[in-house]
């Protein structure tokens, strides 16, 4: 029979003499070298390909060029102009937008809230997050000021800080009045630092 298994007798090490009936010839040096290079190159390549494919996909957050988004300019409708008090009293409004998280789109989700003030024909918008440590700032009608319940940060109606607790004034947001509607470009900023840096 052509294929009887034969027990191998292991040992063909350069240090010890061959125990086989026929002495083992080391490979021709040049062929041996080519085989070594080939084995390393091809072996490395086949191992690398799946790893590279995986790494590329894993680095998706920094490698993929994202679409410019929903096609909007980042402004969300906040209120009707008529809803704002004429005397400049701040009023809080909630902003909503469609939010995409990986594959899911959440329709009409709350982004956050802002204070709007109407002064003459102009509208000012403040992010209602305290610049100190991120609590929500309340408007106190009795004192005509913004006041944070967490650590007593206080701001005047123009958003300027009134004590040393907050590191900076309230964050002003970009506003556009389009016809009878007020649009705000909602952004959050890092807290607890003197400069206003968008997250």
């Amino acid at each position, binding site marked *: 029979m052509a294929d009887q298994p034969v027990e191998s007798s292991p040992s063909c090490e350069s240090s010890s003499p061959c125990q086989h009936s026929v002495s083992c010839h080391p490979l021709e040096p040049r062929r041996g070298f080519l085989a070594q290079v080939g084995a390393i190159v091809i072996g490395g390549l086949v191992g690398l390909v*799946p790893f590279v494919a995986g790494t590329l996909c894993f680095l*998706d957050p920094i490698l993929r060029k994202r679409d410019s988004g929903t096609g909007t300019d980042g402004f969300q409708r906040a209120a009707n102009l008529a809803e704002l008090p004429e005397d400049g009293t701040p009023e809080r409004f909630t902003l909503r937008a469609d939010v995409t998280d990986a594959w899911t789109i959440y329709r009409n989700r709350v982004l956050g809230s802002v204070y709007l003030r109407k002064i003459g024909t102009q509208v000012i918008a403040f992010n209602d997050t305290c610049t100190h440590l991120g609590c929500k700032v309340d408007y106190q009608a009795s004192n005509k000021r913004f006041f944070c319940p967490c650590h007593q940060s206080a701001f005047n109606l123009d958003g300027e800080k009134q004590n040393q607790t907050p590191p900076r004034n309230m964050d002003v947001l970009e506003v556009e009045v389009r016809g009878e509607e007020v649009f705000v470009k909602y952004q959050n900023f890092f807290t607890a630092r003197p400069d206003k840096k968008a997250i």
Partner: protein
Amino acid sequence: MKALLNWLDSRTGYKNLLHEALNEPIPGGARWRYITGSMLTFCFVVQAITGLFLWSGYAPSTQTAWESVYYIQNEMFYGWLLRGIHHFAAQAMMVVLGLHFLQVVWDGAYRAPREVNFWLGLVLMQIVIGLSLTGYLLPWDQKGYYATKVATNIAGATPLIGQQVQAIAQGGSAYGHHTLTRFFALHAGLLPALLVGFLALHIYVFRRHGITVHKSAEGKPVGKFWPTQVLYDAVGCLVVLAAVLILTWTRGAELSAPADPGEDFPARPEWYFLFLFRFLEFEAISRLGVAFGAIIVPGIVMTLIFLMPFIGKSKFGHQLNRWSLVVLLVGVAALTALTIYEDNHNESHQAKLKFAERDAHRIVELARREGIPQNGARELLVRDPYSQGPRLFARHCSSCHRFDGHDGTGQHILKAVLDAEGKPVKGAHGNLSEEEPATAADLKDFGSREWVLRVLTDYDKTFAPMKNAGEKGQRFLDGEMAGWCRENKAVLSDPTNAGSVTALVEFLAAQSGRADHGTFDEKLVAAGKDIFEEGALKSGTLSSGCVDCHAMKAVGETESLGDGAGSGYPTLTGYAGSDWLKRFLRTPGHADFYGDNNVMLAFDTLRLSDDELDLLVKWMTGDYYHTQKK
């Protein structure tokens, strides 16, 4: 550098390990036939690497599994490549596994003293099969869902413990979140861990006994694993990888529509299980029950394979093993080929596959355009007229109408024909059947310019199926409109009147207000309106104007062109448009439509809900998102 390596070696002994690994003696020297084991290990390593990366993007739940795989496949950076490699390397692994197994048996490597290693190999084979079975479900697409259902139902057919086994595997009495979490835990946790453990044992025992040397290699010098055999192994792995990459590039990993328990799918198992699928279909086998064909027979075969080392002790036994395996593999190949052949020649199956592919393309298009709602991507298909229209047509309309000769989804409406002895006769459609004649018009491009032209110039042919609809149907073929068309056939087909006919068609088609027919030529529409009222063509006159019978308020106008001839003469205000069609479907027997002559079933809200009506009509009037052609 050397000092550092020496230091490392003195602490770890890695040089010895490396030496041990690379200087494995190979009696007779390196050979190509020894590479299958390394190729299998390579496949597993590829699966482990790509699997871990896929894991980082996968979310196992019924509302996120398909969605996350869709996202990997279509949105993430080179996600298609990653998933493609994982998908096709799994299949490559089955092929190499078959080769490895065949080689082991053929060369007698299962015999003493390697029996235990042979059994370890069989365990590994079961683990790999388990991995492919569990992995198939994870994308939670129609294909994986229905194919895996078959597998768990087979498990459920196991004598005595079947139901319990099925419930445990599914994580409940039906498929749901826990089916996915369990399959995922098996696929990415337990089974790979077992595989690593058994693979380590397999390799350890293999090294202990060494390679099974071919007789022809006896007496030849002893070679070493490094470098020539390593090179051969690496080339083998390169071939596998190349095949995987080519398949990824040319075909891509499939992702069918999201799993939908309410939606039929032409389910087939993955190709390497097709033989079992076909085996179960034999009448003689299916009569003996699922458990017999799917559990007992494969169980007996596996037991015989397990016993191979004992059977193979004698020369005769070894030959028996060899040839039994060859017969088994030939049988498997034959059954696989038979299934593929039959499926390719099964018109209905092919139509279903095509329709399923249509869904698969459509859902990606919709997900890209609209984003996936919180409840999952299936919702996008469920409320998409392009996807649901044909299904509603098939369910509600195709018992009388046809759509381009089929039922809307590509299926032909067939009936069995029996011969004198009551046996079915083989027909043009193979499956012992012939086309069931329609009893109403074929509604492909209903309301389009082509449709209007067909009705005017070839009324008899357009409504020919009505002759099958009994006495009332015949009225449509003997009626006034049919008569009008015959009377005016000569005038309408006169080449000098081609322009006039085009104008009339343009006018009528414009009534629908459909957006998908392109812009309507205003001049033509105006000219067509005159013909509609007066009946005067460029050469000759119609026997009567359309307004003499049909009431119509032309689109964009407030004055009626005519009040019609009374009940049963269809009003053409907004003809074939959304509102007209909806009203017609609800009340075809209304005086504004066919009146007493009506043969069509009225689709009231009990037969067709408002949502369904909306989807059907939107599909028929082309009111849905159309694929943007680049």
